[in-house]
């Protein structure tokens, strides 16, 4: 009996313990489930944050301007690939990094700042650094600095400004002279003086019309894409240019040595444009050489290209000007230009002709030693359309050096 009661009590006890344990198990299982869900939510959320940050980082990495992000103390947290070279720089660019650090520190204190940094390099560059604080709802997130390379836009701005001022100046000088001469002429009674004045009027008028011709030629070449192409023998073009430049060369006693080898020197080109380009190169060489010096012109075939090289032993072009000489009206030494009668359009014409024909123009120059310009054009191998086989060389009275006999010296 007693044993039966004990067994019952034990069974009841076990049942209670079992029930409690079951309940506990249920409870803990619930907590574990909650935690699991919580963890999963965090993981998912964290994943989203990481994904979003990666996306933002990649976007900044792709930016064409330098981006540097700093914390509230001004210490750099992130730098995109465009900004990295400045941090690793050892020469002029190291100064940009110093400016970035300085502006970031100022921006971190809550002030938007910007500065232009000019580097003489080489290459010469102008950079615009701006920094602003990162703040939202009164909370401080640090600062960001942006580095923009404004070299090209500044160059274009300067070019546009120069163009307007140059064109006005170039046209105004002969116009002023003309009006002054006309005024004097009106009151002049001595026929001899009047005739001398009339001659001066004519000279100024020719100068003015020369400038206008150059401008028109440039504008025509700039607007056309050399669609009127035919197969042209470069030797003929050079020969024509030689005969045009002959008188000016003779006046300064400059001999022009031409080296036109008997090779296939045909190109597909707009003949008039090409002639204009070669003439301008030769004209410059004569203009910028001192009297009694020599100018060389050589045509050659190199790979799939035909090259025309015009070299002089003139004043030479300082390195810093070499990139700009192909701009309209750009002149290296303005004070001396007047006496030579250049207005600075020749090389702009040459560059446009080269570009129109898918070629290029290269310059090599040392100050005090001379300059060499090379016009490179893709060769054209179709039959000649409007040319004879033999180039007609001009009778300029100049020593012509090697005639077409295959020499290239």
């Amino acid at each position, binding site marked *: 009996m007693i044993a039966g009661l004990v067994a019952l009590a034990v069974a009841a006890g076990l049942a209670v313990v079992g029930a409690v344990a079951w309940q506990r198990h249920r409870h803990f299982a619930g907590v574990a489930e909650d935690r699991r869900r919580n963890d999963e939510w965090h993981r998912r959320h964290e994943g989203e944050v990481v994904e979003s940050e990666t996306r933002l980082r990649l976007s900044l990495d792709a930016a064409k301007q330098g981006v540097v992000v700093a914390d509230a103390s001004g210490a750099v947290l992130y730098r995109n690939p465009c900004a990295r070279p400045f941090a690793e720089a050892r020469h*002029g660019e*190291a100064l940009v990094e110093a400016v970035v650090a300085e502006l970031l520190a100022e921006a971190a204190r809550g002030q938007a700042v910007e500065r232009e940094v000019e580097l003489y390099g080489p290459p010469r560059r102008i950079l615009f650094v701006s920094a602003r604080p990162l703040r939202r709802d009164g909370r401080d997130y640090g600062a960001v600095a942006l580095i923009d390379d404004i070299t090209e836009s500044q160059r274009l701005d300067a070019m546009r400004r120069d163009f307007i001022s140059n064109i006005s100046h170039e046209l105004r000088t002969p116009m002023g002279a003309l009006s002054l001469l006309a005024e004097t002429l009106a009151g002049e009674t001595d026929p001899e003086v009047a005739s001398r004045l009339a001659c001066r009027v004519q000279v100024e008028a020719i100068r003015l019309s020369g400038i206008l011709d150059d401008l028109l030629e440039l504008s025509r070449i700039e607007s056309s894409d050399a669609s009127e192409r035919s197969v042209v023998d470069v030797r003929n073009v050079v020969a024509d240019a030689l005969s045009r430049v002959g008188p000016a060369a003779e006046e300064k006693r400059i001999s022009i040595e031409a080296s036109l080898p008997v090779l296939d020197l045909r190109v597909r080109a707009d003949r008039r444009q090409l002639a204009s380009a070669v003439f301008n190169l030769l004209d410059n060489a004569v203009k910028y050489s001192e009297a009694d010096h020599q100018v060389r012109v050589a045509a050659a075939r190199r790979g799939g290209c035909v090259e025309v090289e015009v070299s002089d032993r003139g004043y030479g072009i300082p*390195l810093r000007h070499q990139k700009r000489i192909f701009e309209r009206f750009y002149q290296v030494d303005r004070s001396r230009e007047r006496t030579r009668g250049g207005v600075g359009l020749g090389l702009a014409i040459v560059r446009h002709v080269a570009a129109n024909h898918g070629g290029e123009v290269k310059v090599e120059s040392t*100050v*005090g*030693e001379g300059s060499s310009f090379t016009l490179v054009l893709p060769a054209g191998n179709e039959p000649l359309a409007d040319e004879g086989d033999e180039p007609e060389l001009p009778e300029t009275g100049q020593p012509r050096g090697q005639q077409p006999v295959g020499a290239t010296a």
Partner: protein
Amino acid sequence: MGELRRSFHEELDEIQAGIVRMAALVTEAVPRATESLLESNLELAQQIISADDQLNDLSMLLEERCHHVLALQAPMAGDLRALSTALRLNAELERSGDLAVNIAKATRRIYGTHYDATLRGLLARMSEEACRLVRLSIDAYVDRNAGLAAALGDIDDQLDNLNRECAQAVFQAHSTGAIDLQAAVQICLISRYYERIGDHAVNIGERVVYMVTGWLPEYTGSARLQIREHSNPGGPDEG
């Protein structure tokens, strides 16, 4: 100790960055000085003269910083050499900046003088060559490249030759009456300033060799003196 050393090396890195920045100020000042000279740009000349204050300020701060680290951290061996090298480089670069200022001042002295293309070309080339030497010396410093640093003396020969050529060209121009005596003297001095900038770059190279290898350039001369004194104690120097 680990923490201390880490911040010590950060200090050394920052000192190196300061030296690089000083050199950048020099290599930016020299072509500006040349432009002011060749284009008679007095405004630019004044800018260079004023901008030298920045270099002087940086030099002073850097020197103080080096002394601070020397006093507080008592560095040894390579670290000590790096610091003493930074101190020397600081002085060489500060002096190079002064030479750029001298060129700008000479620009004012010979304002209005027209000189021929040969002289202009030579001055432009000397300017480029001097800057190239400074850049190479800093490359050697940052890369700890003792080979490049030791070669700077020979690379500098080109600038020395240009200096001689320039003197010849000045004599020539003066003898033909193209420039007056005042301009001739100034141009010779300017040429000398470029040549000195090159010499400072060579000095930087020598100190970089010392920093990397522990070998002082003056060691050879000093050893020679000791041998002489040892073989002939108290006697006259026979050279």
